[in-house]
């Protein structure tokens, strides 16, 4: 039984068919990668899964429940967390606040909770969120930065903070949109270890990435997208030698 399944999903923006009849399934516990040239529709697929776009056709199932067309906050509450290709942190808030906001769905007190701030119920709720937040900061090795403003962190740490914030959602499925973009080789190596540790905690990972070394290094399954169509899927060795994939990346005539 798959954790995430896309069935014949298409989306049209006016006349442009950005994603066409894509079938994908992510099994629980695996690291699944989605690769493809620029503009292939990878981020669009993430936006379809997280409810930012609604598919024109097809269905998306998470835990065997249909989620297409649901609101992003609803989908997050179901257990899908994500990071963004171009970092979307809460810049003027502290690192801790960023992660506390990530833990939002685990709390329950709203406006009335502000009025009852010093009652034991609200305080235990806050403690729970704080615990979750610190736990995910620890996983991303950011505990010594809790009081820094997010915008003051170096680039690599900002990327890690985004992952920490997504972990605080307590997701079953974590979507990483180009997590290694702009990182140096050492940072990439560290990130790769961290992603493996996250998977070890039982969180399924679905990621989009350009860096082939990174993808080949950690993926259980790789799907390849080109012009909105899935052209290949399989283990890293199969993908590396697949003529269609080579053609998509290097052009016709590259295979001999």
């Amino acid at each position, binding site marked *: 039984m798959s954790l995430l399944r896309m069935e014949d999903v298409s989306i049209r923006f006016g006349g442009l068919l950005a994603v066409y009849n894509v079938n994908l399934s992510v099994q629980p516990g695996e690291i699944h990668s989605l690769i493809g040239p620029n503009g292939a529709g990878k981020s669009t697929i993430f936006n379809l899964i997280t409810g930012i776009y609604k598919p024109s056709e097809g269905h998306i199932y998470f835990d065997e429940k249909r989620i297409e067309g649901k609101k992003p*906050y609803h989908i997050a509450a179901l257990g899908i967390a994500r990071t963004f290709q171009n970092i*979307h942190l809460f810049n003027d808030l502290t690192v801790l606040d960023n992660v506390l906001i990530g833990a939002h769905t685990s709390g329950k*007190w*709203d406006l009335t909770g*502000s009025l009852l701030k010093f009652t034991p119920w609200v305080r235990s709720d806050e403690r729970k969120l704080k615990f979750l937040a610190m736990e995910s900061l620890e996983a991303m090795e950011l505990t010594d930065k809790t009081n820094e403003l997010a915008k003051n962190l170096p680039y690599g740490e900002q990327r890690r903070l985004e992952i920490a*914030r997504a972990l605080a959602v307590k997701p079953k499925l974590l979507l990483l949109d180009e997590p290694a973009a702009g990182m140096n080789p050492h940072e990439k190596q560290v990130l790769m270890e961290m992603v493996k540790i996250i998977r070890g905690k039982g969180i399924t990972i679905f990621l989009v990435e350009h860096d082939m070394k990174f993808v080949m290094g950690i993926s259980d399954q790789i799907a390849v997208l080109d012009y909105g169509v899935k052209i290949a899927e399989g283990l890293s060795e199969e993908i590396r030698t697949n003529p269609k994939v080579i053609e998509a990346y290097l052009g016709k005539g590259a295979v001999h």
Partner: protein
Amino acid sequence: MVEMMQNLIDQIDPYTLQILMNIGIAIIMALGLNLITGVTGQLSLGHAAFMSIGAFTSAILSIHYNLPFSLNLLVAGLTAAFIGALIGFPILRLTGDYLAIATLGFAEILKVIFLNLNITNKALGLSVPPPNTDIPMPFVIFFVALVTIIFMSFIHNSRFGRSLMAIREDEIAAEAMGINATRYKLQAFAVGSFLAGVGGGLYAHVIAYINPSDFGFMKSIDILNMVVLGGLGSIPGAILGASVLASAPEFLRFMQQYRMLVYGALLVFLMVFRPNGLLGGVNFTRLVLKIIGKNKPARAAK
């Protein structure tokens, strides 16, 4: 107790007292708008409209029904909050400039409605009877302002407040974290309108005469100025901004007709040298921690 308060008030000259009351009301208004514009990031140019709803509700209640003043203020606030939520539901889907224009339009429409209703006495306005309470007005105002300040600081450090700030910082990311942005914006708008309504009720009874034209565009801009001057999103900032701008016309009175000129110039200078407002970007908790040398990372809660 009441006599003690009255004695205390008799010691202060009425002119100073009037300024202090204006400051108190300004603080309540500014903190309400600060929640909407400063914390949640939704630019509203119609805050005075909610003030007018509160002012007229409160005045009409005082004229026709002899409710205790606390209940009167509560009804005024709730009416403003209710209409705020009703209006907010369609317009909070807009963002930025569009939202600003929609709130501005709403405020103008409401002014015209009040200018034509019999119950608000049309353009003649209403004379408001004294409030039905033994406690002197200045104390009522200071008490409400104090409660507002405490409540706002509670909001800032809560799950609710963090959600609002997340929406201000990045709405898409906030929704991806499970925050229902529309619902939280609506709640912030309702709370801000509630405070404007309460502030309006107090204003009506202090001034003793209200007219729909008192709550025009300029009034909304005045309140916005207080929030921006102090620093968007900062509670001490909103208090400072409200205090400075509510008393500025009095301090600048010696310049007679030139005072608006100076007032405008001051605002321009401020925006050039301190674009984030006087206290914008100053985190007081962190400042205090730094001063006493305890700016260490927080430890994991047990």
